[in-house]
């Protein structure tokens, strides 16, 4: 039984956590020969909404460094304190005071860089392009145009370079505090799935089902992160995806339900996934479901620090052959939003082959298995922490498809 939000004693991230994050960024910046890191004003997720993950990822670097929903950050590599600019109502424990916007973000960011002595500095910009570890879905980055162009004009002698990986790699490996938050998030997401299993039955209004799952997770303290919900008869066209409660749709006998159930705790997005069938599972589906379960466990054994993703990808993608099915890697990082590396059917992840698996990284691991004729496919998964012994699920659940009869 998961404890309620009112009984969960979490006081927020510590100052030591803040300093750990800032130092990791400084260390990476120093290795890259950068004088200071800039997280510029980024576009808001309501306006740049390529996907749920990507929308949440737009301002993720500022949340990672400041715990403010929106901020620009100038972090000198030489250990001086950062200058933080924000439009928020008030500061927090990490950033009690910040600079307000002086007319425009462009002017304010330029002035802060000048104040930090960067008129001729080599400035690393996070979020200008997609990265390996972060902003992987944002091919054009997440930076706001008008403020950035204004800032560049005011600093003609400085050099600005894409340095998305400098912060990205700092985000890739999680601290103990972050892992604790992701564990809580995974448990809350699992509670959301339990609610769905409890309520889903033929005749149920899909919008109400959606609402009750969200009510459960928010009541346990999760920030609201829309559940992705798919429903329909197997064999019809691809199941439609919804991210709001639907109107006029009712569950029917034989429906397949798929989902991505996310919970956000301490700003970090955890995800659990559970396929459901409103009826008995056909025998013809079982080999693929069994293979998916075996693949999930086998993949966890191979999710060990020190190796590159290339071998891991090849293992997962070839696993199905010896079982007479097809398998595909579906997996990406967990964190503040749009975390990588990203392996999806549409983005096979080839660019990530050389990325290293590291101790403390957290992923949503949810490989896909298809029957040989591709008439059926299934994906089950959840949050997994990389440890010396391999992947450790952050919440214990049993792979497979739930049948509700």
């Amino acid at each position, binding site marked *: 039984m998961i404890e309620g939000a009112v009984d969960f004693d979490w006081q927020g991230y510590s100052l030591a956590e803040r300093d750990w994050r800032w130092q990791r960024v400084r260390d990476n910046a120093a290795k890259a020969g950068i004088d200071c890191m800039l997280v510029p004003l980024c576009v808001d997720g309501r*306006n740049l909404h390529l*996907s749920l993950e990507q929308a949440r990822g737009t301002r993720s670097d500022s949340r990672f460094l400041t715990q403010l929903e929106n901020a620009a950050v100038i972090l000198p590599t030489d250990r001086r304190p950062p200058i933080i600019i924000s439009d928020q109502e008030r500061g927090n424990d990490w950033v009690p005071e910040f600079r307000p916007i002086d007319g425009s*973000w462009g002017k304010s960011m330029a002035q802060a860089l000048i104040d930090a002595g960067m008129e001729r500095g080599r400035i690393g910009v996070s979020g200008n392009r997609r990265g390996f570890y972060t902003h992987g879905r944002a091919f054009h980055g997440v930076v706001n145009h008008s403020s*950035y162009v204004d800032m560049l004009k005011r600093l003609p002698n400085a050099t600005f370079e894409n340095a998305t990986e400098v912060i990205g790699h700092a985000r890739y490996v999680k601290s103990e505090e972050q892992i604790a938050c992701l564990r809580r998030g995974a448990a809350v997401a699992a509670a959301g799935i339990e609610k769905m299993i409890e309520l889903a039955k033929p005749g149920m209004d899909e919008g109400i089902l959606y609402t009750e799952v969200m*009510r459960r997770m928010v009541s346990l303290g999760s920030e609201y992160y829309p559940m992705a919900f798919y429903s329909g008869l197997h064999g019809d066209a691809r199941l439609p995806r919804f991210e709001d*409660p639907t109107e006029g749709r009712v569950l029917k006998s034989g429906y397949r339900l798929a989902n991505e159930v996310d919970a956000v705790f301490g700003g970090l997005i955890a995800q659990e996934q559970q396929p459901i069938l409103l009826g008995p599972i056909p025998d013809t589906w079982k080999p693929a479901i069994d293979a998916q379960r075996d693949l999930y466990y086998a993949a966890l054994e191979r999710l060990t620090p020190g190796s590159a993703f290339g071998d891991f990808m090849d293992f997962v993608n070839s696993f199905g052959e010896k079982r007479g099915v097809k398998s595909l890697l579906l997996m990406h990082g967990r964190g503040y939003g749009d975390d990588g590396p990203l392996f999806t059917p549409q983005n096979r992840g080839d660019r990530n082959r050389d990325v290293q698996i590291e101790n403390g990284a957290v992923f949503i691991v949810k490989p896909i298995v298809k029957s040989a004729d591709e008439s059926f496919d299934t994906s089950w998964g959840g949050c997994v922490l990389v440890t010396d012994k391999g992947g450790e699920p952050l919440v214990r659940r049993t792979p497979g498809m739930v049948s509700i009869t």
Partner: protein
Amino acid sequence: MPWKTPPGAGATVHIWSGYSLAERDRRWRAVRENAAKSGFDCILVPLGNGVDGRYLTQLRCSAMVLPTDGRAPIIIADRRSSNEWSPEPWQTGREWAEPMGEALLDLGMERSRIGVAGLKRGRVTHCHSIDGVVNHTALAQVMSRLPNATFEDATDVVGFVRYVKSEEEIAFVRRSAEVAAAGVDALIEYAHPGVDAAMLYADVTARLLELRSEYYPLTLTLDPIGAPRPRRYANPPLGKRLANNAMIVSEVSAILGAQLTQVTQPVVLGRLPAEWQPVIELQIEIYQEGLARMRPGTAFGGLIDFVHGFGTQRNMKALMQLHGCGYGDDGPLVGANFDGDQLRELCIEKGNAFVWKPTAMTADERIKFCWGGPVLVTDKGGEGLFTRTHGMASISPSG
């Protein structure tokens, strides 16, 4: 050349898209007319300006080039998405700069004057985004493909179309207002001393979703009545139970038909101190008189002066608080951090929909009271679109 759905593109996300084709044509025509007045050859809604994109396409994620001369627009849609308004858009995966540039070239805009919506804060849209909402790398790439074209801000070209609502839109603003008010009902129903604050947050959110609102964050405070600068929560509060004498100041928002509205009514868990009553009475007067003055043709400067001057007659203060209803970040925006000086000449128009919530306060600003919600501008003045008892809701400890 039209862009096709990339192989292996991800799932299409279905969103509400219920406005008529007539409504589409009205919006597009009005944007073209505004663009022509401003001398633009076309309007570009680029990557990053998702709100204007949704307004003009009903797609969840889109970019658009709308020629001023009446030719059909080119719409670039996310993955496999399409709808009645845009049955055959160009479709892309995660690459947006290339199709945007190609769309401009296909429409012959190599040497044109291109209006970019969302490049800067507008007078009546994108009001909180002082540097606009456009994605830098994508627009820079588009501009480099058309080195002889000029790109200028055209936020108000689309903004002033969004500013006046059609009958179809007004119907959804009304529904949205009713749902937001139902959210306040839920808050009053569930808020009692001892209640888990996260549970209250979840219950109010769930009431809005049950009524098929799209999600928009609920905000609320929990501190004791009269506390200076109470903390505002935009997420479920952790480790908190409602206490006696807590004052819950909330902003309950709903979105139906893509129209965002908001209702606010403070709630006190206990008896309302008598010293609050004069402030509440002042706010009621300002609210009502403001509605009466909210007639087409009235400049905002007059309304701002009225509100700010009204309190001094009672040795109190008043603050104008108003913003538009609509697809998001609608204006005009007047409030504590936005004095509205640049809006003084702007006129109120029939068909405007605002969230009207002036604040009254004591001279020392120790007691502040704000109440309000969506109103529609008609020939007779502002019409409240929500039904609530005007004042503070007081909940006794026994319920």
